């Protein structure tokens, strides 16, 4: 799986090949917790190494895309002597069931954890219906 930089072969495009990133760094799916409150959906994703300026949250229709870029992990003057985890960018897409108020989405990232709060639109919130004894 190592790319040989000296020999460039033409890569035949396959049918339906996914859109590629411009960088060759691996892209990981961040571990994500998703839970639903009465008033909002909350998505919490682990993206260590991603700062506030490197994160992107996009809601198109019902598809939520969260992505984050990390800096090159190489340390000047040092060589990697023990390797237990790979460093890469993050990207994940979720299909929501709809009913999100897109204008009120709130996203914050702290300590490499992204939290996206997606408030439900009024129509999507549970309506309390009183049942009359009849």
């Amino acid at each position, binding site marked *: 799986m190592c790319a040989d930089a000296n020999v460039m072969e033409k890569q035949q495009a396959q049918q339906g090949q996914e859109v590629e990133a411009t960088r060759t760094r691996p892209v990981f799916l961040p571990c994500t917790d998703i839970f639903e409150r009465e008033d909002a959906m909350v998505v919490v994703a682990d993206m*260590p190494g991603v700062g506030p300026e490197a994160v992107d949250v996009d809601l198109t229709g019902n598809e939520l895309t969260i992505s984050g870029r990390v800096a090159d992990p190489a340390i000047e003057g040092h060589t990697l002597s023990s390797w237990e*985890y790979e460093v890469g960018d993050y990207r994940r897409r979720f299909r929501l069931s709809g009913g999100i108020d897109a204008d009120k989405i709130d996203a914050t990232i702290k*300590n*490499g954890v992204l939290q996206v709060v997606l408030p439900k639109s009024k129509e999507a919130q549970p309506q309390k219906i009183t049942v009359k004894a009849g």
Partner: protein
Amino acid sequence: MAIPIPNRAARQGEPWSPFGDFDRAMNRMLGDLYPTRAEYPPANIWTGKDDVVLTAELPGIEPDDLDISVHENVVSLRCAPREKPPQSEEGVTYHRRECAHAGFSRSWRLPFEVDQDKVEAKLENGVLKLTLPQSEVSKPKKIEIKAT
């Protein structure tokens, strides 16, 4: 940039085995998917001339939760469990739970004694970068040969 080979695949002096090459090839392939990881958290170690830098991904950890201690040539990392998002609140339904929240404790033995006063720890965006310089006393001393 060459992909570094995990320690597991670079052992020398192993007794010859008809499966040796195949094993190593499999380990290397699987190593790309699952790097050697005996304990949590996984850490990468970068070796320099006089020091070693240890990096680990610790998302959601505050500096106060971490306990780093250094003794001679052993570095220990201990951490309290992470704050979980609300789960027992009224009206909260979980759709997906993938993030780890448990605490951990792990130690590393380095090939030299660490200068405790010069250790630097930085926790930025959930990534810990621990710089461990070699103590002056343990550095090899060049010995001058006197000409007679």
